[in-house]
């Protein structure tokens, strides 16, 4: 073997090796072959900004053990951090359950949805400001984090303040999936690409599926884009090398930023479905411009349109949610006295839930004095972000298309959002929770409620039921043909109650409600609803701060997760693997935070993800990596570290490195391999520095892997040195449009054409994750 393959004890040695091997003439053998189909990638600064900002939001803070949520947008690029090798660090120094990153992520994913509906004049004014998406585009980024603390009273009257509360502004008909296809048809996909920037939401009754998440394939593709970007843009290792030296061996409990991105996109744009109410609107903002001659009348019109007109939500969504009326005042052309007057009359008409939003109508340019860039949405769906990336990749425009806003606008919007949340949305939800708790849940829980639920199963109690509650019919409330409960059925109300509690972070009440619902849905054989209730029961049990005995954990939560996954996938005609994946991924993250003994379970669920094949290749690699971090969080006892899982963690890291290599992601592979070596090294505790693996075969395998990674990196660099073809971007976009939505197990055909170098035949089958080693690449690149 060549000296290249000396197992490196420290990552910094690595770039040096790379440089040394660069002089070998054979490595530049044929960049042209890989060049041909590689996407055109580097030259567009606005694109770069998009990648940077999205991924840096997605939380790769190198800090260890911070429990604060990531509110600030770190301006530095994530990809420089991605290549630093502090993936998991030494598990010995890692206090279990210290990084709350994923917990916060999950809490911030399930938040109240607020629909936005604006009249034509408002939309026109905002389009004039450069906001093609109108009011929704303007409000969306600001709803994600409500400034200041939000105090929420839970069901027992205790107040709790949350710094990171947010709401999600959505379009009126966002998140709706066509019921026939469960959101996996290809037209949807075409719409995603072509439906960019069509303004005037109000007139178009067609759903805009672009903002709907829940497509595992799209998430995969998006993360793959980010990964490719990082591969092709961090070829220059020197700054990372320096950075890395400054912060050596810092244990980083957070996962790779790509995994966080994956999770975030998994939880973005929750579809509006009947078995959970998270995406059902809690409130609706109806905005009218002050330019309109008769704003009150216009509001009535919009209300009617949305309440029972063309923009009505589907039947299973409760329609009588809060409406919030906004008068948009134009600071530059409008007359404030007149607007105030209108606003007063609005208040008289519609009551308390009104706001006067004062905006400037003129377009703002970056060079203006107090202009602020419109923040990028953290929680956009994968399809939306893909479309955005694509738009910027194909466009020739160098300038950043993100609109800029004057400072005063930003302040006005922030005030508006805070007022909306603190004074209207949250109190309204609290009130509803209290009402339902008293009227529905207490009755169900009490003696008569038990009889009621019994009477549904046993006819002898039929007589007592009729006297106790008139709302429950003799049969169940479940409409098994359309698969939903009517929104006023007690089950639907209880589900809503539980979801509200979950969104308001009252996990105790949520858990007990989900628990009741679980049995009800089970009796009704409403499997998807059952799965939803069980999933959320498991999540709320894991999210609640109370300590969890290992007995409850193994008895309840494990069986709940199991039941949820089974019911989501196998128990129904139209399986919903997206939800199964969500259950497993969230369950594993939360279990992992539960400390060492739960980490085994977390790893088990992660391998379940891999076995069931509900993720594509990127997800496969990410979750393989995740298993490693799950194991590595488990620390041992005593000087011998008994009960630790370092060998397992290292093993899975090696597997992850191998998987990444097969996906031609050299940086990721390298990071995993370094993690693995660090874990193995810690295990053997030798002072000499060099990692010595116990088995010679293992050593050979790792050396081989290392060499292949080097080869791959050189290949990528070889591409960088060549000239870039313009036509590739077009070709790429065409290719993406063709992509079908099917969730088949090996969507490898596209990948193969995306990445230039012919990847070795890959299999994701659970049987053999490893590939035959010693692929042809070695022969023509090395030795």
């Amino acid at each position, binding site marked *: 073997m060549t000296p290249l393959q000396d197992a490196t004890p420290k990552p910094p040695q690595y770039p040096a090796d790379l440089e040394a091997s660069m002089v070998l003439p054979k490595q530049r053998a044929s960049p042209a072959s890989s060049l041909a189909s590689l996407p055109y990638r580097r030259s567009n600064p606005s694109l770069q900004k998009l990648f940077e900002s999205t991924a840096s939001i997605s939380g790769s803070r190198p800090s260890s053990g911070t429990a604060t949520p990531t509110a600030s947008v770190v301006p530095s690029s994530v990809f420089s951090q991605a290549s630093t090798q502090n993936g998991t660090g030494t598990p010995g120094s890692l206090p279990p359950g210290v990084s709350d990153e994923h917990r916060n992520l999950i809490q911030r994913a399930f938040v109240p949805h607020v629909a936005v509906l604006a009249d034509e004049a408002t939309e026109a004014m905002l389009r004039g400001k450069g906001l093609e998406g109108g009011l929704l585009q303007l409000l969306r980024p600001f709803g994600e984090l409500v400034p200041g603390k939000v105090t929420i009273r839970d069901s027992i009257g205790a107040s709790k303040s949350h710094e990171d509360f947010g709401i999600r502004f959505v379009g009126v008909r966002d998140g709706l999936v066509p019921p026939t296809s469960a959101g996996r048809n290809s037209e949807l996909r075409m719409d995603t690409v072509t439906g960019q920037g069509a303004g005037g939401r109000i007139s178009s009754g067609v759903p805009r599926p672009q903002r709907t998440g829940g497509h595992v394939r799209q998430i995969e593709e998006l993360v793959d884009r980010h990964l490719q970007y990082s591969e092709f843009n961090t070829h220059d290792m020197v700054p990372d090398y320096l950075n890395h030296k400054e912060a050596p061996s810092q244990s980083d409990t957070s996962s790779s930023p790509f995994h966080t991105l994956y999770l975030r996109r998994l939880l973005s744009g929750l579809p509006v479905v009947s078995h959970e109410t998270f995406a059902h609107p809690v409130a609706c903002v109806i905005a009218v411009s002050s330019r309109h001659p008769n704003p009150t009348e216009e509001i009535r019109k919009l209300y009617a349109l949305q309440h029972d007109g063309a923009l009505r939500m589907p039947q299973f969504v409760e329609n009588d949610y809060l409406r919030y009326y906004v008068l948009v005042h134009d600071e530059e052309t409008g007359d404030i006295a007149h607007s105030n007057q209108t606003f007063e009359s609005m208040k008289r008409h519609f009551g308390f839930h009104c706001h006067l939003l004062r905006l400037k109508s003129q377009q703002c340019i970056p060079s203006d004095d107090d202009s602020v860039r419109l923040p990028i949405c953290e929680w956009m769906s994968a399809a939306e972000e893909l479309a955005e990336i694509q738009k910027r990749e194909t466009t020739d425009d160098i300038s950043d298309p993100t609109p800029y806003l004057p400072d005063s606008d930003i302040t006005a919007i922030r005030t508006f959002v805070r007022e909306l949340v603190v004074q209207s949305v949250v109190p309204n939800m609290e009130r509803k929770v209290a009402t339902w708790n008293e009227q529905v849940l207490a009755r169900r829980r009490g003696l008569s409620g038990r009889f009621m639920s019994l009477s549904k199963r046993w006819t002898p109690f039929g007589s007592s039921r009729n006297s106790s509650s008139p709302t429950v019919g003799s049969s169940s409330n479940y409409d098994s043909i359309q698969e939903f409960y009517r929104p006023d059925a007690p089950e639907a109300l209880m589900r809503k109650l539980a979801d509200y509690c979950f969104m308001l972070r009252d996990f105790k009440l949520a858990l007990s409600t989900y628990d009741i619902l679980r049995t009800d849905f089970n009796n009704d054989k409403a499997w998807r609803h059952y799965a939803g209730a069980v999933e959320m029961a498991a999540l709320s049990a894991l999210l609640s701060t109370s300590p969890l005995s290992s007995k409850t954990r193994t008895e309840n939560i494990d069986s709940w997760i199991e039941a949820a996954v089974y019911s989501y996938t196998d128990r129904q005609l139209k399986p919903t693997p997206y939800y199964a994946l969500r259950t497993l991924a969230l369950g594993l993250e939360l279990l992992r935070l539960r400390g060492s003994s739960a980490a085994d379970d977390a790893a088990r669920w992660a391998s379940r993800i891999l076995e069931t094949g509900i993720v594509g290749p990127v997800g496969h690699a990410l979750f393989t990596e995740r298993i490693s971090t799950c194991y590595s969080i488990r620390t041992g006892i005593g000087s011998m570290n*008994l009960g630790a899982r370092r060998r397992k963690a290292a093993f899975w890291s*090696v597997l992850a490195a191998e998987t990444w290599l097969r996906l031609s992601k050299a940086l990721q592979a390298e990071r995993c391999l370094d993690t693995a070596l660090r874990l193995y090294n810690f295990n053997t505790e030798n002072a000499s520095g060099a990692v010595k693996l116990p088995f010679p075969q293992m050593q050979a395998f790792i050396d081989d892997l290392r060499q292949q990674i080097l080869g791959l990196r050189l290949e990528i660099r070889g591409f960088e040195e060549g000239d870039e073809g313009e036509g590739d971007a077009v070709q790429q976009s065409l290719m993406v449009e063709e992509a079908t939505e099917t969730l088949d197990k090996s969507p490898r055909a596209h990948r193969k054409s995306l990445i230039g170098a012919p990847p070795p035949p890959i299999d994701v089958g659970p049987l053999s994750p490893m*590939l*035959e080693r010693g692929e042809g690449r070695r022969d023509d690149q090395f030795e």
Partner: protein
Amino acid sequence: MSYTFTILSPHDTPLFTHTFGTSRSSGTGTPAFTTADLALNPFIIHSALDIVEEVQWGPSSTSGSAPMYLKHIDKYQNNFISCWITGGNVRFLLLTRPRDEALGISAANPSSGSASSIYSTGSGAGSVRGSLAGGRAGLGGGAGMYNPTSPATEEAVKNFFVDVYESWVKTIMNPFFAVGHGDVVKSPVFRARVQAAAKKYL
């Protein structure tokens, strides 16, 4: 059914490794591992040591004496690991890889990945009709699923381990064999005995 048997020192150094196939039911005794499998096996065995340690120092399943035979302890995908631990903290690990039919996976199924290329040996896997360790006993259920905790499997593995343990004790009693220094076992007699035990029981 393919096996990898490894003896590991207390410091995780492999002292002896033997890879073989089943000899039961017209098995030829040749393993049906692919090169990829063979590369992976050391990793699997090594990672199972974590579980070995946990079982070893954890609460004893039998009252009174701690057992030497720890039975089936770990599993990676379709590879099952059984363990025997000696008084000197030397670990015997047996990795069992049942043939695909015993797992309910048809070998012709292309979704099982490289399965098509695995069984180029032909006689290795396809014609093997169950071995005592799992195969025949498991077939009683009708499904033919391999079950690592079925009594017959455990018994067969145990018998194998007992035989190997006897040979092992005789080997380390050799005054010229420095067992404490992690000496690799090179004795052809020992290997032959392991082979015999494997042929007899697995």
